[in-house]
């Protein structure tokens, strides 16, 4: 049976990916995902796998594209500025319907930004990760255990829907140590009859491609892909609801900021404020249904993020003007404190008479 071990978030991501059957890792050094690549460099040779330090993030994501095209489980990891470089390759993965896992251990931006934890790539991950009509599934773990669980799950979702999947973590989750139960090694994988892995003279050639020069063809393929997105939206929303049954104030927070928000929510409950927390785990698809379920009791929403206010857009889209939606956050690597969030909750409760 699996035992509890103490690990860094970045290492848990790496070990769990290996257990999910990932044997091909391509990366380029960047803080604060360093431990992940170092772990892969150490472990992959012992698993008869490949760790390859690419010449750039651009090359790394295209190596992932090649490995994914053969049907292999493959992954790359980086942090914010490096993810921007991978955007081209991610769009091609989407366009060619290739499964792959991309880790973003976020740091502050824009530009070179800083190396402290941040959640300021939310828009990039959920809105505009690459050019064209495209989405990718995005998971935001908030514990080291969830780092392990969701990277494992990400490979299955990637294969099932033939889509890239991103784990949107941050420097805090990547660097922190927590006890974790690692998943069992995966032994059964789905068939990939579309893979370009050599036809062995037994079938017509397979082509992995994202080019469609006829407008009608490209439109049809995009519509088909969006039908798949609709299925993902219907079946793959993930979130945690904490003390939401009678909540008049609903805090929405993901990843590291949800850990802080939870402490503030508990404190506010002790002081008699009816407050709850929705923690989106899937950022795309956004957990619209979980937010909708709070509408009966909610008088106001508060989005808490480590950025200038990005996920708050998605909360407002669901709430659609029916309730006030406010935002509180810090950015640039500054981490909000529970006391700050508590004060926001208290003020908002007073304002809306909760």
């Amino acid at each position, binding site marked *: 049976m699996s035992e509890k071990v103490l690990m860094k978030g970045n290492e848990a991501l790496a070990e769990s990916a290996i257990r999910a059957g990932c044997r091909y890792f*391509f990366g380029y050094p960047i803080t604060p995902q360093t431990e992940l690549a170092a772990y892969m460099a150490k472990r992959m040779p012992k698993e008869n796998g490949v760790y390859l330090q690419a*010449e750039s993030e651009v090359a790394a994501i295209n190596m992932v594209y090649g*490995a994914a095209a*053969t049907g292999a489980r493959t992954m790359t990891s980086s942090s914010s500025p490096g993810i921007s470089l991978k955007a081209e390759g991610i769009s091609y993965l989407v366009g060619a319907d290739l499964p792959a896992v991309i880790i973003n251990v976020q740091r502050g931006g824009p530009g070179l930004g800083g190396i402290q934890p941040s959640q300021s790539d939310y828009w990039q991950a959920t809105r505009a990760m690459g050019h064209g009509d495209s989405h990718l599934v995005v998971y935001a773990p908030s514990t080291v255990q969830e780092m392990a669980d969701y990277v494992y799950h990400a490979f299955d979702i990637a294969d099932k829907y033939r889509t890239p999947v991103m784990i949107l973590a941050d420097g805090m989750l990547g660097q922190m140590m927590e006890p974790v139960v690692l998943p069992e090694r995966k032994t059964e994988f789905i068939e990939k009859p579309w893979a370009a892995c*050599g036809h062995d*003279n*037994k079938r017509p*050639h397979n*082509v992995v491609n994202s080019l469609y020069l006829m407008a009608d063809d490209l439109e049809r393929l995009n519509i088909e892909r969006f039908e798949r997105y609709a299925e993902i939206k219907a079946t793959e929303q993930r979130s945690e609801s904490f003390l939401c049954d009678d909540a008049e104030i609903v805090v929405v927070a993901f990843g590291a900021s949800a850990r802080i928000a939870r402490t503030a929510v508990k404190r506010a409950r002790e002081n008699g404020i009816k407050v709850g927390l929705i923690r989106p785990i899937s950022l795309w698809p956004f957990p619209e249904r979980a937010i909708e379920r709070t509408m009966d009791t909610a008088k106001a929403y508060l989005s808490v993020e480590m950025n200038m206010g990005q996920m708050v857009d998605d909360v407002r889209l669901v709430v659609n003007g029916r309730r006030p939606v406010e935002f509180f956050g810090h950015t640039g690597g500054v981490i909000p404190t529970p006391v700050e969030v508590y004060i926001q909750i208290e003020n908002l409760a007073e304002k809306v008479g909760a």
Partner: protein
Amino acid sequence: MAEKSNILFERPEALLPVQNTYCPGCAHGIVNRLVAEAIDALGIEGKTIGIAPVGCSVTSYNFYACDMIQAAHGRAPAVATGVKRVLPDHVVFSYQGDGDLASIGMAETVHAATRGEKITVIFINNAIYGMTGGQMAPTSLPNQTTQTSPYGRDVTTAGFPIRVCELLSTLDGVAYAERVTVDTPKNVRKAKKAIEKAFTYQIDGVGYSIIEVVATCPTNWGFTPQGAFHWMRDNMLPYYPLGVYKDVKADGYKDIYEAAAARAAECPLVNKEGDR
């Protein structure tokens, strides 16, 4: 009807019976065919994966009968690396033009070569961007007129062309680099031999191999097909001399590892006991 037909010329099996998308007189058609003939000759179609670039040969995934992957502009060597690392017993080739390989994809090109990836790169150098309508390429000659060098390539502002075989031949990962052309039957035969040899080096694990084909672009150069070959012979071949730029086996080594160790014989770390 004769009992036995004596077939002198037919379509290679590794080329599908589809119409290609090249302009009349373009050398791509010849080189696509040579690659297919090499695949047939070595009997490797079933275990070959080709990488198509961005450029005039972007749709070559429709022409080859082996499995094919279309890559982002310039990224074919990185994609080929990903494929080869998963399938080390398979044959992987990329087919790239000068803009793709020597401009936007130069980092991927140099690093795949220096890693000694066991891949084969077929490089078409016709000194121009064909697909987008004739812009200056990294290999456009000094004073060559193109859409984006309308007064001729001015080396004081646009710099000098990149000589790919010369550049890559300095890298330890390269097992075989040869520059060929396809303007005459004799040169076509030489090119075919070179391509076959490059695949053989890959199969034998000797190292990275690249065949640069000095080619033409009658459409964007504004010549007839034969006129383009004349211009190529007069101007390109003096700048890009044909020949073998690196061949580690001809140099007497088993593979790139032996050759690289010999080159750095004075370095104790490189030649540490117990290494290869």
